[in-house]
């Protein structure tokens, strides 16, 4: 069982107390050094401060790894593999015919049709010669940085359970998300920002809602925090409108004095000290969070890289750029959902695949490529793990005449950045792109690999709940060694 070394003193992980001595030594002094008035005067230095309340304090990696942060791009609704990263000429050759030798084909939402050719053509790119369709011309320029897994399969062909599986390992609700496990295992580098941040699409969030980035049975500290793109980035971040800044300082000073007086009666109580400290963090977050996502000072060239200010890339481009800024500032895990709501607004192309994937790819292709370039030019690519996937793929046969139904039997996902071996292709689907046939990979294996790339041992990162030592990969999983550099 893994205990974050500096936060647990008893044998149970929901005992969140630290010893007084530990806390104070981490805070760099006694209660006096915490005096809010001091900190208020030193806002400029806050990024360098290392104040923690324990749960989210940085923790050492269990195994050496290059990546320090994750940016997860989740194409909600399910990306069609045969139209993006897994070319299948047989779809044209046998258009309108049934698949042979694959057994009964189950459609989830529609009735099964015959094979439907891809509306897009493929080309080989880079030294690796990886095939990418016309839908991702910009991402295609970076194939030599990408490790593509073509033989991923998931347990469920329904959005709800499949989203849960991709995000939490289990098809059932109630489990901590990948971002929660990583912040639980590693804490976060910047205490003035949440450690796990989530962006949803402007058309709505994914099915299942916030449990997709939930902390499950872990403390609330490990849940993903949704960042808004307008107004105040975090709900309840800003003081009430009628309270001026100087009034807020006065307000906080009185609170601090009353709390200090109370805490002085219980000098051994670390919870009370942590609570005082949490107000200091909250205050600093008021400045640091808006600054972290403020892209106005980025250069025109950088914005252009992400397609900010152009359509249809502006929205996702801003999120991708904000993700880079957050990672740069020490945020551990950033997840961006592309696509929202139901059906057309998401990647869920049950009909009119051409318009659907045409739009969603156009929105994200340039920003993703821009993100890779930008991370590289800043020396962050090697310390950032990029993960791209949906909750499943799509069927090679038609649905509703010109769409594709859900397919969990074989689909493509890719990784890039810290510790990833670029230009790699892992596994293969059958002649139709229907199911993985070579070197099939489970979602557990993907999760084990993500944890490994972040320096966490997926078998040792456990959390005890209801009498069980829980793991992200449950009792399954092994590493996808082919993608490791």
């Amino acid at each position, binding site marked *: 069982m893994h205990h974050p070394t500096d936060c647990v003193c008893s044998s149970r992980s929901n005992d969140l107390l630290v010893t007084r001595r530990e806390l104070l030594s981490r805070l760099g002094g006694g209660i006096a050094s915490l005096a809010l008035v001091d900190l208020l005067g030193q806002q400029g230095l806050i990024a360098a401060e290392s104040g923690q*309340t324990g749960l989210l304090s940085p923790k050492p990696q269990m195994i050496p790894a290059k990546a320090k942060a994750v940016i997860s791009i989740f194409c909600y609704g399910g990306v069609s593999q045969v139209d993006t990263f897994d070319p299948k000429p047989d779809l044209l050759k046998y258009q309108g015919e049934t698949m042979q030798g694959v057994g009964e084909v189950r459609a989830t939402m529609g009735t099964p049709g015959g094979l439907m050719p891809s509306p897009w053509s493929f080309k080989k790119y880079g030294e690796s010669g990886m095939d990418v369709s016309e839908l991702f011309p910009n991402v295609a320029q970076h194939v030599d940085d990408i490790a593509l897994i073509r033989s991923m399969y998931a347990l469920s062909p329904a959005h709800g359970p499949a989203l849960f599986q991709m995000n939490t390992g289990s098809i059932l609700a*109630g489990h901590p998300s990948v971002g929660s496990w990583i912040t639980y295992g590693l804490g976060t580098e910047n205490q003035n920002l949440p450690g796990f941040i989530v962006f949803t699409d402007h058309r709505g969030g994914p099915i299942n809602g916030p449990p997709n980035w939930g902390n499950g049975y872990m*403390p609330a500290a490990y849940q993903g925090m949704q960042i808004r793109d307008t107004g105040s980035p*975090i709900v*309840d971040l800003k003081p009430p409108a009628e309270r001026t800044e100087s009034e807020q300082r006065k307000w906080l000073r009185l609170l601090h004095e009353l709390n200090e007086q*109370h805490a002085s009666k219980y000098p051994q109580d670390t*919870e009370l000290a942590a609570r005082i400290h949490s107000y200091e963090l909250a205050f600093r977050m008021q400045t640091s969070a808006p600054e972290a996502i403020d892209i106005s000072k980025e250069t025109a060239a950088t914005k252009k890289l992400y397609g900010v200010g152009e359509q249809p890339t502006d929205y996702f481009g801003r999120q991708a750029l904000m993700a880079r800024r957050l990672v740069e500032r020490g945020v551990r895990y950033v997840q961006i959902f592309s696509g929202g*709501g139901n059906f057309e607004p998401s990647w869920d192309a049950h009909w009119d695949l051409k318009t659907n994937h045409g739009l969603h790819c156009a929105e994200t292709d340039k920003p993703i490529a821009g993100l890779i370039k930008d991370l590289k030019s800043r020396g962050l690519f090697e310390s950032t793990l990029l993960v791209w996937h949906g909750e499943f793929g799509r069927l090679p046969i038609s649905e509703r005449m010109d769409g594709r139904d859900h397919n969990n039997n074989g689909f493509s996902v890719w990784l890039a950045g810290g510790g990833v071996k670029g230009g790699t292709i892992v596994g293969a689907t059958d002649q139709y792109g229907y199911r993985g046939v070579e070197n099939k990979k489970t979602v557990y294996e993907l999760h084990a690999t993500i944890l490994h790339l972040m320096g966490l041992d997926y078998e040792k990162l456990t959390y005890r709940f209801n009498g069980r030592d829980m793991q992200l990969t449950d009792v*399954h999983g092994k590493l996808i060694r082919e993608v490791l550099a």
Partner: protein
Amino acid sequence: MSCSDRFGARTGVALVILGMTTLAGSVRPAAAQDEEERARQVYQLFKDKCFECHGSDAKGDLDLRTHKSMMKGSQSGDVIVPHQPAKSLLYLLVTHAEEPPMPRKKPKLGDAELELIRKWIDDGGSLEAVEEAAESSAAPDARDKLKAEERPITDAERQQWAFQLPKKGVIPRVDSPAWQANPIDAFLMARMSAKGLKPSPKADRRTLIRRAYLDVLGLPPSPEQLDAFVKDSSPDAWPKLVDELLASSHYGERWARHWLDLVRYADSGGFEFDVDRPEGWRYRDYVVNAFNKDKPYSRFVLEQLAGDEIEGLDAAAKDEAMIATGFLRVGPNLGGGERGRQDALDDLIGTTSLTFMGMTVSCARCHNHKFDPIPQKDYYRIQAVFFSTRGVEHPLVPAHEVEADRKETARIDGLMRPLRQEKRELEAPYLKQLVDREISRLPEYLQVAYKTPPAQRTEGQKLNAAQVEKTLQNDTLRAKITEIDLVPLMTADERAKHKSLTDRIDALDKQKPKPYPTALAIADSGREARPSFFLHRGSIDAKGSAMTPGVLSVAAWTDYSFPTPPADAKSTYRRRAFAEWLIAPGNPLTARVMVNRIWQHHFGEGIVRTPSSFGKMGEPPSHPELLDWLAVEFVERGWSIKAMHRLMMTSEAYQMASDDTAANLALDPENRLFWRMPRQRLEGEIIRDQILAVAGTLDRTMGGPNVFPYIDPDLFEKSSKRDWPGKPDEDPTTWRRSLYVFSKRSIRYPFFETFDQPNLVNSVDRRNRSTVAPQALILMNNAAVVLQASKFAERLAREAGSDPAKQVTRAFLLALGRDPSAEELAKSVAFVRSSPRGLAEFAHVLFNVSEFVYRP
């Protein structure tokens, strides 16, 4: 950890059992005879070299014992591609062309054997011939399988503390007379003395009353209540206060929440669409009333598990018992199909065993429990208890009203039917016109498919033609062609007729009777139980023996037999029998688990600090003799929960101060021997209740449908499928106790969520208590909190006049139950005076001070 086999873990024992017999001597072509012979040899080879893993164990999902199971392939896909050895995974692995080499950890097969396999795959790779020849054979495997289902319990395992029946031991003699009277104190003191600990001194009266109010009611005492208690010098002032609190109906509201955490209560189904359960609150009210009425815990258990199987109840009691079975309905919705059904049963078994038995029976779904003596068979025998249940909507009106409703609905449906038919006929020609137009725009291969006469269509064309028809004419999702498209094409007369038909249908629809109230309840599908099976590795594809119902065998000292239900029963009576086992005198767990929970909430931690884990993965009791004594006492007092509250709260231990004592801290830093009362951060729900109570705005209405306080829409979806009809913060109807805030699984009320409310999906025995910055943000900045602070300020002005010193004093009394110190008073008064909005700002500070959010 999972099996290291390349095929991964899980699933798959074939039901067909094969053995070897000689082939029948019929005359067949030589080639075919050769093929059969090869298949037979291959089968023998598999049996010798592969069955150990790929037989009944089906490692990596691969079971080579029958043709069918072999052709299902493994977790990695097909293992045999007929006629193509080079593409057959099985061949590639045995020839070591691919990883991992097979057979695992054994010498490579000989060249002759490999050649045999190659030829056999060349032939087609079939085992069917062997199977035909071997139909009726026998049983070493069947015996193995049965054996695999057994996991005997040893005597040593039965000796584990939790499975021993609790007995009242001798109450220790202690030096202090004050600590002798209540056995709780005697047990605690004896251990403290032995360890050199001194109990903390008695807390002052203000601390005591605040502690008791927050503990029992979840609300702070008013200044008047406080004053009365402080001034009451009678010797029974404290027990009187305890009785008063236990008589308050707010007690049930406070303690119901603890129970709702255990049963993962919520008002929506969770999962994809998180559909609301507008009648779910009835179960919540049942729990509140059960605590308030001090329903014996034994009865509480029985009603929740088997309320539908209790006979001889009058109508009101029947309704109550049916609502109680909501326990089995309040969990999250799970997926469909047999797998979803198994998951739903697992949720019931898991929650039931954690809640009532403090055992993690769910661990035995796929294998025998790894740490505790819980055989997998126990899991499936308990599953058999619940297997025949189904959800019902129990009408809370008399039967004749239900019947009248049904008749009226049927009558109106009958009137609507011809109108709908007429409407369809009116639309038909235009629909055809539009369909034809759409078809002419399709890709050529689809047009060809559609136009080809049905008899001549290829398989693919059949599918495509059907898809085109369905999509264009009968698709609710894509909604290609609807009335909106059709009506404009009609003549004026037709349009008028269409409208009139639509209006008449709508009018009829409005006449349908309003739905009568119902409760989410449980019933069995009938007197006969539906057959259920042992599932090897938890897989629905690996059914073992049929299961009879059972209980947790290690905790059953005598063989517990399930009675036969009466001849006219509509139910299997299995749940009732299971509940009766739980509350029978011979059950070692039920009373212990519950008294430990009561203790846990009073004293901050349980005597067993893992209240739902009494097994080896949990912690042993710190005071086993005390736990036993309490468990027996609980049963002797008729399972009265209130009697336990009284007993615990009137102990000296409950009344100790919470101060640090350096000497004690050095010896027992975690307070495992209960030498003080720990301070406890309050739950989010109770902090909010307290804010409303202190602001003087709390609406104390009890029970009924839930309320929806405001949540920032950015925190939930714009998706039409998910909504939170939040009312403005200013709406006083939302100022109800937090227990009545709608609990939607995918849209959690942020205030509660931030303060570690459980996720409404898992049974939770002990909440996390984390301290994080978002808690500070919400208390500092959330508009609802700020609004209540201004209400608090208005109250202060109303009750204390305009003198800031009096206002501050009153504020401390209301919020913290004490007077301010001189220093606090001076600083606070200066703050109030410093700006025109000073009082409201100060009121808001008090909602944020640590003392406010802790139980002392």
